[in-house]
């Protein structure tokens, strides 16, 4: 299936020949070879144009009956066509089996997963059990569509943030280099200027002063350079501090929570995945804790009850003016009429007493607790 090794070994040579149309590079220096990941048979660009322009067609290489499409043809990246093929397979499998380490229970489970993935890749590369492996892979892909997508998104995000960071670092390095260069330049210029100054003073001054002037010039130079150095030191420290804070800022941002919404136990292919705990949806806040404000079980409240005693109140403006509402009276009296009708004290209280007794004597069966029980049952006579 793969083309002869020696052909590839001499790739780029003038006598390289397209296996399909037999035209050689000697005749056509611009000739480019393309491959199709379907069968990895190499052919020149013009052959691809010629054969596959009008739609899918069989591979022209004798004995290979694969149907190829033009858009799948691409340039060969690796010299060895086997490596090329393995990289393709690896890419495809990794694309599907893209579980992340944080999705596993333990490091061990993750390592198992990695090994399994390598095994699948090796199977596909070396052609053992291809049909079964492929079907497993397809099944897994269709079952875990969502998590695969989510992980892909995370990967893409990570890659882009990594790139960003990279460019940022490069930019910083460039700036630093620039600054250092600038500094060097300044220093050099100053030294030159100082030297010139000393020379001019020596030229203008008397010979007796020569030694003093030279010493002075030296001193000035030293002072300047030390001042500059301390200044530089200060700036450098500041920059370092800035960099640190930058790193800190980007540190926690890189950790992104992965979305593991689906597939609990659905992936039979991969073992040791963390059980996904979907947090319970928060219940809406209920200020009445289950009570419905206007709901009653024993009676239905009316707007009006005939009552000779209460009827005058309706008409009495003195009562109405203060905000007195007969409705309040109705609801209160009826509520009190039925509040506790279904409470059977002999049952409920005895149950409560039993519960209380077991509560108290259970955990702390001390004398003090017994005393507390007595006093909580209400014997001020004994305690006051």
């Amino acid at each position, binding site marked *: 299936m793969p083309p002869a090794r020696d052909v590839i070994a001499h790739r780029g040579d003038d006598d390289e020949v397209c296996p399909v149309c037999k035209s050689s590079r000697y005749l056509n220096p611009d000739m480019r070879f393309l491959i199709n990941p379907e069968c990895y048979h190499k052919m020149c660009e013009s052959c691809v144009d010629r054969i596959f322009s009008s739609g899918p067609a069989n591979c022209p290489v004798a004995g290979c009956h694969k149907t190829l499409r033009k858009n799948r043809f691409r340039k060969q990246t690796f010299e060895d066509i086997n490596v090329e093929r393995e990289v393709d397979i690896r890419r495809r499998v990794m694309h599907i089996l893209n579980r992340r380490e944080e999705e596993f229970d333990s490091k061990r489970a993750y390592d198992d997963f990695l090994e399994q993935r390598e095994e699948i890749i090796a199977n596909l590369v070396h052609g053992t059990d291809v049909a079964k492996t492929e079907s497993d892979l397809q099944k897994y892909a269709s079952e875990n569509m969502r998590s695969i997508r989510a992980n892909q998104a995370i990967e893409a995000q990570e890659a882009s943030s990594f790139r960003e960071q990279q460019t940022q670092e490069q930019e910083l390095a460039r700036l630093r280099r620039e600054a250092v260069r600038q500094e060097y330049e300044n220093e050099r210029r100053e030294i030159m200027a100082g030297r010139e100054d000393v020379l001019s003073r020596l030229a203008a001054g008397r010979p007796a002063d020569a030694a003093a002037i030279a010493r002075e010039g030296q001193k000035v130079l030293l002072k300047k350079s030390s001042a500059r150095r301390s200044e530089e030191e200060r700036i450098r420290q500041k920059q370092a501090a800035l960099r640190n804070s930058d790193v800190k800022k980007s540190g926690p941002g890189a950790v992104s929570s992965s979305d593991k919404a689906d597939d609990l136990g659905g992936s039979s292919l991969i073992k040791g995945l963390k059980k996904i705990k979907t947090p319970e949806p928060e*219940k809406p*806040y*209920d200020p009445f*804790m289950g*009570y*419905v404000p206007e*709901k*009653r*079980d*024993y*009676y*239905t*409240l*009316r707007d*009006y*009850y*005939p*009552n000779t005693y209460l009827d005058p109140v309706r008409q009495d403006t003195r009562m109405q003016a203060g905000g007195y509402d007969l409705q309040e009276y*109705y609801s*209160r*009296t*009826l*509520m*009190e*009429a*039925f*509040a*506790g*009708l*279904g*409470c*059977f*004290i*002999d049952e*409920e*209280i*005895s149950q409560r*007493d039993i519960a209380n007794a077991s509560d108290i004597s259970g955990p702390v069966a001390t004398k*003090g607790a017994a*005393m*507390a029980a007595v*006093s909580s*049952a*209400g*014997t*001020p*006579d*004994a*305690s*006051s």
Partner: protein
Amino acid sequence: MIEDDFYRSSSQFRLWSFTEPSLKSQRATTNAVASDRVRAALHRAQEARRSANSSAAGTPAPGGDADNKPVEEKPIDCLTPEEEQQVLNYYCEQIIQLGDAYKPPLPTIVRATAIQYLRRFYLTNSPMTYHPKQIMPCVVFLATKTDNYYLSLRQFAEGVPSTTAEEIIAPEYIVMQSLRFTFDVRHPFRGLEGGIMELRAIAEGQGQPAPHTRTQTPEDLKRGLMGIAPSPSPSPTPTLNDRISRAHHDTREILKYAAQTTDAYFLYTPSQIWLAALRLADRPLAEYYLDTKLGGPGTQQQQKENPFYALRTKLLATLANCAAMLESYQPLSSNQDQMKTLRRIIGKKLYHCQNPEKANLSGQKRIPAAAAAATTTTATAGGGESGTSESEMERLAKKRKLESDQKRKQSANDLFGGELVMQRTKEKQAE
């Protein structure tokens, strides 16, 4: 039933509801503790007197011992729990009479509250420790305050014969403490008004069916009410309205007297009490009214369909018990024999077994610190169980404080405090 949950949250249900055995054992314990302390206190008093005598005589002679021996041997005759109950009932009636002494008379509800305070007070205290004569005016005065019926202390003291204002409020703090600072008493009176109000509405064809028996129309209800058995009372009433009015009146009378002087408030809920009283006054009416709420007796088939059938049977049994209790009540004044024994109990026996250390309440009144100091001194003097209970109280207070501190700390650890909803539901469960 939602209404029942409302009642379950009341302090009357949580703290002041008892089963019959627990009520009895509570009273027995109170009586036993009080008797012991009375004996100890009387003993101490004798000792003190004797030592005072002997020091006055200046001769620790054997003759002194011989003098005291017969006194010591004479057993102190304490009240039994039953006698205590009689005393208590007597003073409950006294409260009702005291209410009439004012102009205008005290409202029924104030008297009823006062009676319930008195009954609750003597659940954990014995008449031997605190004489009801001292406590009674105090609870009535307290009831005027908690029931929002304002009387000044001076005005109030005028109605109570042969006491001063000081004496009336002297035991107030002790009373409030024994009431565990729960002043809410759920009375059946307002519930009765509500029930009668609804019955009248039904009689006029304006009745509203209960939420669970939606099928009934106001006309059905009215027809049902017309069709009930005639009232068993001797003088038949011409109209339905008169019948309801009479039932109303009779029930109210029962609630005013019988419900107050029995243990009904401890054993039953207010709505059960008023329905039981209505059942006594006019049984067909009460049963019909209950059927409109919980469905009638019906056939076997209907019973199965009725979701309240179990509740109804249980409720009818409870009402029957409650009614029997209310019916068993007889006013003390009507029974001459009983009055005579009572006079003997209160006049003689109670006088002899009164705890001398608690007699003067105005001395240790109101200021709890002073009262506590007084009890600690007596405790150190007498030693024994009062001392331990005192330290017990301190220990409990400390424990409470610790617990609340811990709770606060826990909520402080949380950035935004604890979970609101979870906490509440937990508390609810704990209840």
